[in-house]
């Protein structure tokens, strides 16, 4: 399969995603420049973390108008897989590809630490390699990661089982102290209706090797790989 990692001005984590996919998982990865158009042939597009356009105005607000984003919207509409991490999640929300918004952390501080996530749904291309209820240990590092959605949207998220990961403690329980940024309903990541676009605040790419403290992040990427394999096989079998 073929991965595309978009580089916006102010991106910081594009190299981490690239290295994790290429060196830890042996994937074919390319950087995509924000001023270019999106070419065909990609299986999954990643919007990495960082501070696109300095996060000036609002996080992700300006990046969504980059030329490449038109192609990403179209790609997603056709069922292509899109993964937004941290700032990428913010961009996907701003672009309307994901519901809700990410606002200032309740503590008003940037926060960098390891958190535990509980996988809530395993029937998506981003979580299919994990089990429902499985815990993942991943780092977060953001100032505006508090997930917000209006009550109507939240209800739809629940009904459609779009909340894919929640912040929990080491025993898998949600609690105020395990919720690092005040996110509504402990939400750490959501997918769209079609389950082909996923955004999360924690960084799977920085948890891809034992020496760095955790390799749980690989679960997310290997889910995508497994899902694409399945898709290919299905296509091949007709």
């Amino acid at each position, binding site marked *: 399969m073929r991965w595309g990692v978009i580089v916006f001005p102010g991106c910081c984590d594009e190299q981490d995603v690239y290295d994790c996919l290429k060196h830890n998982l042996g994937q074919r990865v390319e950087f995509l420049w924000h001023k270019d158009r999106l070419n065909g042939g990609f299986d999954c597009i990643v919007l990495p973390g960082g501070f696109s356009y300095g996060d000036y*105005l*609002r996080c992700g*607000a*300006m990046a969504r*108008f980059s030329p490449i984003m038109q192609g990403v919207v179209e790609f997603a509409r056709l069922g292509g897989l899109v993964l937004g991490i941290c700032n990428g999640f913010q961009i996907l*929300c*701003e672009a309307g590809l994901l519901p*809700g*918004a990410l*606002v*200032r*952390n*309740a*503590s*008003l501080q940037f926060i960098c630490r390891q958190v535990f996530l509980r996988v809530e749904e395993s029937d998506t291309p981003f979580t299919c390699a994990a089990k429902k209820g499985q815990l993942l240990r991943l780092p977060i590092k953001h100032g505006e990661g*508090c997930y*917000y*959605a*209006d009550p109507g949207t939240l209800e739809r998220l629940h009904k459609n089982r779009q909340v894919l990961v929640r912040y929990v403690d080491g025993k898998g329980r949600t609690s105020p102290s395990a919720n690092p940024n*005040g996110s509504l309903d402990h939400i750490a990541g959501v997918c769209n209706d079609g389950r082909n676009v996923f955004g999360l605040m924690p960084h799977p790419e920085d948890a891809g090797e034992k020496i760095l403290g955790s390799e749980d992040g690989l679960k997310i990427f290997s889910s995508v790989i497994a899902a694409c394999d399945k898709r290919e096989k299905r296509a091949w079998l007709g």
Partner: protein
Amino acid sequence: MRVKIFVCLKDGVLDPQGKAVAHSLHSLGYQEVQDVRMGKYLEISLDVPSRQAAELKIREMCDKLLANPVIEDYRFEIE
């Protein structure tokens, strides 16, 4: 033409900055402060033929970029 735009979090969206400011004001003795909401203020110079045209353009800019309708409201004043 000069336009002043005010962007604020919608009622109901938690505003931790506003809360922190309110708390500080209270601790300074301003007990009469009931609520603080913090927002953004933008000044835009426009070259347009009329107020109406300005209004149209500004509304468009706010809807597209300057405010996020999921969490924010806006209003503006044209000078």
